[in-house]
């Protein structure tokens, strides 16, 4: 229980007025940055690295970490209010979060996201204190074959995103995978479908695609119909009802679990945890067909998983000194600018600092909740803004966000193209979420497949010889069979009518 004593010492540092102020400033800035669609946690944290060099190390890291999870939460706000996710992982929140806002329940959606994020963040941080080392050892067992198998499970969940027609979900999924083929391939460095544009070498900017499909696509289909959505939707209750709380409790618990464990897996990204949580909630629900119409579980689960993931992903940085995502890599750079090298020696050489940062994660998550619950009415009241004004502001934010990722006007054109695609998807009754999921997962799958084969010298049996990857692949097949069965049942029920 030494670590608890050290943690107590950490609290003493984290609760010093100056550090509290840094945490508060970080949460506030993070939320504001997150509200700006497109400027996700990675870009947001990177922007503030120069600032970090000017502050004392502990304060700087506390603030950057607060910005990181503040931005994670901030992205939810625009997902719910304007169907514009701050980053790809929040795309799944749009499905039911935005549907809730349209039926006047934006308040409960934002409230449960804040509470879920808090629970997920706190539990993940406590996990960091108690079980960090053994768990990271376990997570290291995830090599390329295991990550590939885990991604296959994620891909199998595409079917869970289908609303009515499985074929239409598949169409969107395959289109996403084809878009993902653009760029240098992971095998031989061949330029695929880049039209000779250097901007496309590393693939289509995912943020630009997401902003286009969701944000701009939604604006386009709204401005087309002047009548209904031009006026703001009614604003109903701002707070969770007893029923909401009961409905979401299980989702929050499961989301915490999913986010925490997947956060430890190296190189997985935040997409799989959020989508997996959504799929699990839909699967467990007695009324899966109502998902997509504003089910609070569809917000509570993924949002909790997202923040639990965000905090758990810090664990490999602290224990191994290895960044598990681009955002964490940026954070690691901030450590280094301040002369602190994260990794196994951090706890021995800079113990005070390390424990202060961990304590500040708990303080910061609490602060984020305290900061955001009172702000819910303010965010919701943004819906009263006349739609032309809101459309104009959303477009401005989308442009800023998309441009800032690579400082490239080319990406704004990509967003424009995918805005048209998103608009067409609505007209064609195609779901957009599967496209985003496969766009993110396909390159990871292709890369891990190649790495696995490189490990085995081209022998496919590597996936079956390793118990973990074999069982995950079995699970993926199980999910597919289950979906196929329920699809057949639906068809039979249809034909009997």
């Amino acid at each position, binding site marked *: 229980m030494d670590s608890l004593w050290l943690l107590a010492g950490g609290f003493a540092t984290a609760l010093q007025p100056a550090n509290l102020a840094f945490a508060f400033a970080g949460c506030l800035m993070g939320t504001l940055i997150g509200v700006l669609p497109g400027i996700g946690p990675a870009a947001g944290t990177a922007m503030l*690295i120069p600032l970090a060099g000017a502050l004392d190390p502990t304060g700087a890291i506390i603030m950057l970490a607060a910005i990181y999870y503040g931005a994670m939460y901030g992205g939810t706000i625009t997902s719910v209010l304007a169907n514009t996710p701050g980053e790809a992982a929040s795309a799944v929140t749009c499905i039911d979060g935005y549907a809730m806002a349209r039926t006047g329940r934006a308040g409960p959606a934002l409230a449960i996201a804040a509470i879920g994020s808090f629970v997920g963040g706190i539990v993940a941080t406590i996990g960091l204190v108690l079980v960090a080392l053994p768990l990271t050892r376990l997570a290291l067992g995830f*090599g390329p074959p295991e990550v590939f198998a885990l991604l296959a499970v994620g891909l199998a969940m595409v079917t869970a995103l289908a609303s009515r027609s499985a074929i239409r979900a598949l169409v969107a999924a395959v289109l996403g995978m084809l878009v993902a083929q653009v760029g240098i391939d*992971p095998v031989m460095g061949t330029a695929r479908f880049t039209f000779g544009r250097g901007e496309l070498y590393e693939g289509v900017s995912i943020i630009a695609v997401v902003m286009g499909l969701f944000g701009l696509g939604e604006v386009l289909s709204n401005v087309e119909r002047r009548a209904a959505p031009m006026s703001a939707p009614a604003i109903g209750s701002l707070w969770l009802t007893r029923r909401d709380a009961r409905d979401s409790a299980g989702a929050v618990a499961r989301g915490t679990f999913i986010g925490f464990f997947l956060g430890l897996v190296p*190189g997985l990204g935040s997409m799989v945890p959020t989508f997996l949580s959504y799929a699990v909630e839909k699967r467990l629900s007695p009324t899966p067909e109502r998902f997509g119409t504003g089910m609070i579980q569809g917000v509570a689960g993924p949002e909790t998983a997202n923040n639990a993931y965000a905090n758990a992903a810090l664990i490999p940085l602290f224990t191994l000194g290895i960044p598990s995502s681009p955002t964490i890599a*940026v954070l690691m750079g901030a450590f280094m600018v301040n002369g602190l090298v994260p990794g196994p020696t951090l706890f021995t050489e800079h113990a005070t600092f390390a424990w202060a940062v961990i304590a500040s994660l708990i303080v910061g998550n609490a602060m984020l909740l305290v900061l955001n619950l009172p702000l819910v009415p303010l965010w919701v009241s943004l819906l009263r803004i006349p739609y032309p004004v809101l459309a104009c502001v959303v477009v401005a934010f989308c442009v800023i966000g998309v441009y800032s990722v690579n400082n490239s006007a080319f990406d704004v054109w990509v967003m424009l193209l995918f805005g048209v695609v998103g608009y067409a998807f609505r007209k064609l009754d195609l779901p957009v979420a599967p496209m985003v999921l496969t766009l993110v997962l396909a390159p990871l799958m292709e890369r891990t497949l190649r790495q696995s084969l490189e490990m085995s010298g081209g022998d496919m049996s590597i996936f079956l010889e390793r118990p973990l990857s074999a069982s995950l692949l079995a699970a993926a097949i199980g999910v597919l069979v289950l979906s196929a069965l329920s699809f057949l049942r639906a068809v039979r029920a249809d034909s009997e009518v």
Partner: protein
Amino acid sequence: MLTRRSALGAAIATTAACATRVASAQEYPTKGRPIVTIVPSTAGGGTDVAARLAAPLLARELGVPVEVVNRPGASMQLGLTEAANARPDGHTLVWSVLPTAASIYLDSERGSPFRRESLAPIAMYYGAPFGIVVRADSPWRSIADIVAAAKANPGKVRGGTTGFMSTGHFASIAFQNGTGTRLATVNFQGGGPQLQALLGGHIDVGFNSIGELLVQHKAGAVRVVGVMDKSRSELLPDVQTTAESGHAIEPIGSDIGLSAPVQTPRPILERLSQAMRTITQDPALKARMLELGNTVTYLDAQDYARFWDAVDARFKPLIEAAKQQAK
């Protein structure tokens, strides 16, 4: 044949050009106008951290703010191209990373407009030598052990890299070429994922810049068994170099310098080169860089250009080999 008249004309033109160049160099840097230095990779990466350590010192030296701007993408092609196309007035510079910058144009398939001639080298800043690394519980303690294992099981020893056609990949190829072995090459996306796979036992040996290995080595999680350099690293005095191993392994490392758009007037380049010389003598900077595994090594514009040409010559065959291996 030149007539006397046109020769005279040319001479006058040259003098005039020199005069304007001298004038612009005296005014350089324009007071109050910041110098933008482009880092062609992401914020928080090795080059970025080193650039951010140098920027305030350069600013003090030149009397104007020096900004660091990240322009990542297409393995540095976007940032380098942007710098090459910038106004050649010495207010837009770029941190040029070798051999990555060279592999953009040495790989003809990429069809990149960025060439060796697109940039004028100003000065070399630092080098980050690569190391050969195994897990701490590996039975291999020297380069000879790895060679023996690889010879006993051709194509079975799994060797990670920091990415397809990355410097780590060239390091792996150089090792295989120099020792006459063949590894099962596994390409990861960067040093972090490679290290993770090494710690998890998914690869047997890795190739990475020693700066990224230092913490793990000190903590006893991994063991650096070789430094791919001609002389031993100050940071790892007990680790043998590839040169000592008796195999003809090319030395491999990342070397970072400062460059400008090619049309930048010579006096401006010289002014900047001088500033780089001054800051690279700063003991505090040297110490911080050493902690990160970087050896501060100043080269002036001519020597840096020569160094760059040598990199082109050395890496061309490694690039061909890397592509051949993927087929």
